[in-house]
């Protein structure tokens, strides 16, 4: 299962783990694959950006319910959040639940380039840029 997920897939987690704090918290969430398992050091992990229904202004990509019918409302990919999640947290839904269309992939990549300007980890930045360029 792990190998089949790709960059820009949308997954649904029963237990999405917010790993960017000292005390990880869990919640049911949609998330966007930033780096697929094939690139991660542990093949059952993914690097994700959480998707939320809460209107998010900065470094976010709006995903329209009309285009991604599995959402109940228009939703937002929060690129400021970056979490490593195991595949074991996925829900029982058929995965991936969706995939960004080409227009949104291009929009997402523009935001990724803005946000990764702030990371000091050059090889993380390089890997994300390299993987997203493969699907542009």
């Amino acid at each position, binding site marked *: 299962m792990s190998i089949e997920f790709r960059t820009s897939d949308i997954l649904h987690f029963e237990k999405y783990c917010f790993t960017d704090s000292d005390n990880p918290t869990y919640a049911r969430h949609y998330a966007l694959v930033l780096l697929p398992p094939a690139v991660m*050091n542990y093949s059952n992990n993914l690097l994700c950006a959480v998707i939320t229904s809460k209107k998010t202004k900065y470094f976010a990509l709006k995903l329209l319910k009309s285009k991604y019918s599995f959402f109940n409302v228009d939703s937002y990919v929060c690129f400021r959040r970056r979490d490593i999640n195991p595949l074991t947290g996925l829900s029982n839904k058929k995965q991936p639940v969706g995939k960004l269309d080409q227009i949104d992939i291009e929009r997402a990549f523009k935001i990724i380039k803005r946000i990764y300007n702030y990371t000091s980890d*050059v090889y993380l930045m390089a890997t994300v840029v390299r993987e997203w360029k493969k699907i542009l």
Partner: protein
Amino acid sequence: MNRLEETILYVLSRAKQRGKDNLSKFELFKFIYLLEVESRKFTGRSFFSNDVVFVRQKNGPISVDIYDALNNLDNKYIRISQRKKEDYPYARHCLSLIKEKKTYNLEESEMMFINSILESYLPLSIKKLKNIVYKTEPMLDIQDKEKETNQDMNGRPLDFNTISLDKDVVDLIAN
């Protein structure tokens, strides 16, 4: 163990995880070369802090530093044996792991970058890999010089300063 030796062992280990339990010397040289090229392209930095020199040879880039590293690792971590594979008419020197390191002295993100490189190039045939290597900037540069001077440049070092930063990384830095 130096950074090149760590990287070679990591590449062999990752290749094994991805279903290739041995690599030919040709493949290993090209993967390490492409790692250095792509590191400069996507980060502007040498992966090996300029410590690994590649020279032009008949079949593309070769590095004495990699030969030295393989000699250091031979019979301790790796085995070098002659094998015949489907994609090439003759037997070649192949490298396989005999001892896995538990941890690597590489950053998590450096290993992810190597994984990304290997995902692109590991499935390719020798012929396709060679074509890609020949189209990299240092190889194009030395081939241009060979044409200009009508001289064989075998043994001459490849110039990694010819590699341009990826345009999206330039955008990213400019933002």
